[in-house]
């Protein structure tokens, strides 16, 4: 509670800021009035069709990445684990890239997120086949690394076969991750899949806590490890697959946010889950606002910004770790 409340206030504030900041200079009262009542055509259009979906997606994508990062680190007992480790994110990207390349997107706009979700789903099925039903964390990581490499290579293949440079540029920009020009359709597509993921991960807290002591001790405490693994993998896949489908690859949030917030909850994986979801939402909302404020006319990419801001944070963590060890 000590940590959740301030974080929740921060998320609400950033969500409001995301609604109110944009190239169309609309007054505070006018924008809120339009959003709620639907009066005033142009303003309503901006608020309901552009800013509201963007703010909602920032909230959802950020929370999804933060939550799945915390679950993944808890399950693998490793602070360097990140949700992309199981190969879902590159597979979702591959699905989206194929949809763009084949021209499906031009005919049917939702084809992109749908193809990305399909890619994520296929990769999870393959992951379970590769890692086996019982196997421990190591088989899972290896299978994830192999799948990531394959999906990455296939994406490069599609790019290199691209017939014209403009199509290629469009794909490359999409891969960088962004929340610009999304619609409520994206929100409705991602929401049920993400809700499923949250539902799956929400129940893992006790098992993740027990895993603090290692797999044998957790099993002896009555935790069904095979079920826990399935819950974590499916939950993370649903959240990251949906997030990638609507926003592209947004890196570093799932890695850095749980890591930064862990000391504030006394290290307990179960306590970290909700806190990390809020933290992820705050970071993505803030980064998305920053892309609009820093370079309003240049379309700065969200994924690029989170990596540029996230990496130095990580440098600092490594630095502190080294200083602590010496």
């Amino acid at each position: 509670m000590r940590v959740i409340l301030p974080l929740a206030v921060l998320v609400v504030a950033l969500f409001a800021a995301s609604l109110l900041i944009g190239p169309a200079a609309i007054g505070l009262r006018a924008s809120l009035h339009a959003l709620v009542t639907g009066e005033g055509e142009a303003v309503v259009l901006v608020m309901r069709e552009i800013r509201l979906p963007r703010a909602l997606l920032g909230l959802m994508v950020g929370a999804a990445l933060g939550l799945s990062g915390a679950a993944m680190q808890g399950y693998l007992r490793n602070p360097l684990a990140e949700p992309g480790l199981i190969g879902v994110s590159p597979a979702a990207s591959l699905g989206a890239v194929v949809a763009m390349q084949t021209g499906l997107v031009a005919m049917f706009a939702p084809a992109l997120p749908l193809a990305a979700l399909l890619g994520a789903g296929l990769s999870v099925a393959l992951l379970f086949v590769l890692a086996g039903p019982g196997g421990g964390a190591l088989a899972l990581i290896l299978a994830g690394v192999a799948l990531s490499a394959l999906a990455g290579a296939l994406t490069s293949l599609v790019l290199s076969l691209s017939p014209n440079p403009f199509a290629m540029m469009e794909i490359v920009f999409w891969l960088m991750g962004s929340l610009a020009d999304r619609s409520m359709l994206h929100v409705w597509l991602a929401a049920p899949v993400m809700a499923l993921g949250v539902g799956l991960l929400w129940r893992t807290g006790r098992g993740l806590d027990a895993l603090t002591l290692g797999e044998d001790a957790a099993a002896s405490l009555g935790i069904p490890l095979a079920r826990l693994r399935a819950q974590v993998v499916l939950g993370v896949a649903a959240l990251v697959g949906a997030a990638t489908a609507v926003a592209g690859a947004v890196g570093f949030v799932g890695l850095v946010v749980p890591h930064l917030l862990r000391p504030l909850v006394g290290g307990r994986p179960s306590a970290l889950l909700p806190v990390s979801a809020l933290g992820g939402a705050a970071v993505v909302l803030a980064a998305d606002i920053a892309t609009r404020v820093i370079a309003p006319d240049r379309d700065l990419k969200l994924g690029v910004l989170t990596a540029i801001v996230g990496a130095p944070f990580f440098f600092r963590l490594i630095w502190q770790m080294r200083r602590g060890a010496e």
Partner: protein
Amino acid sequence: MSLLDLRDLSVTRGAVPVLSRISLAVAAGEFVGLVGPNGAGKTTLLRAALGLVAHEGYASLSALPGMARARQAAFLPQTREVAWPVSVAALVGLGRVPHGRKMQAQDHQAVDHALHRMDLAEFRARNVLELSGGELARALIARVLAQETPLLLADEPVAGLDPAHQIRTMQVFRDLADQGRGVVASVHDLGLAARHCTRLVVLSGGRVVADGAPMQVLDDATLATVFGIRAFRAQSDGPVLMPLSVLP
């Protein structure tokens, strides 16, 4: 009353038999020391008894569903790995996982009791990753104590502890047995095992080769054939056994 019942328990890894037809029953009030050289199958026996490795034959605990088993038997693995910087109290509190989702008054009481027993009361708020190896080992023992199960299985619980805490831990286990619970612990220190256990089971090559009262089990013949050592024996407020030299 039997707390653990193993009948014809066998474990094979690939084509290699690790345990061969082990039959063993542990009753309330017993502190069973599991002794044997490296690779005798002590760890595998403890894990198979809980159903953590695939096995043939009957093991009373591994037949139970997970949570019910966790209220029946607590297990202290040999590896002392703790992944996250939790407090000592939170670590010990993990022993209460099988007893329900929310920590209640009796759970906090169990944690306090276990911390006190392992001499860790003033460490409760400390980050476990900042403890010394021996302190961490004691915190992990406190975790299994907090589980408050009729049976306790421990894999080399006293390895790496200072002499005072080795004796104290063995005494805690013995007290639990005297209070009507059961303890099975693998121990390498034959002197500690002989002095504190009520019964010793000697494993060698995946088989039980001796089973009974400590000083009868650890006779010259068994020490020579199983361990390849010779030992000095005496009595001083209980049995004393000191390994002396390796036999040629």
